[in-house]
């Protein structure tokens, strides 16, 4: 997830720079802020994992793997429908980058939400 956010930031940043897109305007600003929020969340998560690793705990165990798969499964289902909605509403976006970039960020948001739901409802 961290790698994908970093790659996405680089690609979006490069495209925005090349096309001279104003990052502080309307939908672009929302996407820009979402990228920063996800970046910060991912960074905090990785620091926490590193601290745990220093104490001798494994970075991943069977529970975290199960949570990862379950939340990925729900995120996959939801994101398929999300892209379908984006396809149907494609004319209401100002440009392609904000449309696809927004879709990726919403997918990431869905993933975080499903992660929270899965954690709460384990074995449920």
């Amino acid at each position, binding site marked *: 997830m961290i790698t994908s956010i970093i790659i996405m930031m680089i690609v979006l940043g490069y495209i925005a720079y090349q096309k001279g897109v104003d990052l502080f305007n309307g939908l672009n600003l929302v996407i820009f802020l979402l990228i920063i929020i996800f970046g910060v969340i991912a960074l905090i998560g990785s620091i926490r994992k590193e601290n*745990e690793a220093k*104490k001798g*705990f*494994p970075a991943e*165990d*069977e*529970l*975290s793997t199960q949570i990862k798969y379950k939340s990925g499964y729900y995120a996959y289902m939801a994101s398929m429908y999300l892209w379908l909605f984006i396809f149907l509403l494609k004319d209401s976006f100002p440009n392609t980058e904000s449309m696809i970039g927004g879709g990726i960020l919403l997918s990431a948001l869905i993933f975080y939400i499903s992660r929270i739901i899965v954690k709460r409802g*384990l*074995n449920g």
Partner: protein
Amino acid sequence: MVNRIKELRAKFNLTQNDLALKVNVRRETIVFLEKGKYNPSLKLAYDIAKVFDLTIEEVFIFDEE
């Protein structure tokens, strides 16, 4: 499925951290196990039982229903 991890941990004077390190999982996993919110794999159940020198059935109690 219910388990006696919390009770046994207290008996053996182990913290959640200690048990997690002994069975090589994260502390969160022990928290979820104690709350009964997670069913461990056979390997983890075996490892935990081994820490307390008991059998799996003595630590994890299966409810038929």
